């Protein structure tokens, strides 16, 4: 891995950890408790940032996937794969923290309403992204299929966002990305933005390290291929 990539990753990691500490101070000591839901509403400060990072990660997957289909540059596929892993992780956090909140706020762990169902669908689409890469004998074909799936999966994201506006939903209306401006109190918004910044820094830290890992794996494959008896020497390299 290049030193520049590693240094940037470490800086973002430190910044992310610092913001996480600030976030915990805000969540547990500073921000007011929401009147109707009580303390369980504090899950909001990790649930929403996790959703934001997941959507951003899948946006990167779609952009890099489109770039890969166009340019056939392996680096774009490696970046897409790295972002998809992070997207999967943060979507898992969204899907696990949401029901914990829902059980207290709504009285049920899960409801098959549109936003929840589409988020679960997103998780399965990106699970398919990893499966399809491994399921083809020709790795290049697997990468192309995965890129297409990554683009299709990203189309689900705007649907998730607008689902609470267009259809009846248990989810509250957006409190930040609202046409009339943010509706949440300032202390809640500040805490939410700290969470978003912390999760974004941590995501990019791990994304860079993960991308560096893929680059190193690629270098290893190329080196192995150059050896006598390697994949290229046996005529099976893609």
């Amino acid at each position, binding site marked *: 891995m290049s030193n520049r990539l590693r240094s940037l990753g470490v800086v973002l990691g430190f910044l992310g950890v610092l913001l996480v500490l600030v976030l915990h101070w805000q969540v547990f000591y500073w*921000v007011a408790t929401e009147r109707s839901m009580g303390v369980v509403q504090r899950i909001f400060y990790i649930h929403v940032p996790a959703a934001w990072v997941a959507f951003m990660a899948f946006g990167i997957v779609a952009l890099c996937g489109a770039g890969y289909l166009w340019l056939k540059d392996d680096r774009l596929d490696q970046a897409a794969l790295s972002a998809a892993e992070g997207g999967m992780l943060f979507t898992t956090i969204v899907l696990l923290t949401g029901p914990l909140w829902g059980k207290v706020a709504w009285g049920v762990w899960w409801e098959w309403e549109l936003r929840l169902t589409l988020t679960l669908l997103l998780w399965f689409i990106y699970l398919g992204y990893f499966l399809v890469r491994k399921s083809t004998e020709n790795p290049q074909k697997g990468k192309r299929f995965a890129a297409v799936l990554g683009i299709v999966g990203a189309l689900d994201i705007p649907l998730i966002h607008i689902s609470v506006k267009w259809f009846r939903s248990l989810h509250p209306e957006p409190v930040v990305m609202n046409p009339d401006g943010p509706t949440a109190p300032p202390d809640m918004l500040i805490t939410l933005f700290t969470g978003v910044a912390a999760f974004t820094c941590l995501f990019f830290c791990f994304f860079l390290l993960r991308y560096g890992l893929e680059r190193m794996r690629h270098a290893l494959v190329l080196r192995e291929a150059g050896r006598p008896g390697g994949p290229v020497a046996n005529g099976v390299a893609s």
Partner: protein
Amino acid sequence: MKKLFLSIVVVTLFVALLPEGVMAQEGLPDPAAIAGQNLRGHTHMFIAYFIAWLLILGWAVSIARRLGKVERALGD
């Protein structure tokens, strides 16, 4: 594995030692009902934070392990 176990212990202690949430808003509709709801809410909130940080930490450890493995392979 040792690092992961230590990290889990640190996160658990951090979460367990945190005080109760601040009730900063006035005019609660039914204090008894809210208190009952908050007790349950605390458990759910701590579990949610624990799961989130455990998963993020797990990803970090997993990347570090894979990086180390590939770096060793490249070093050979």
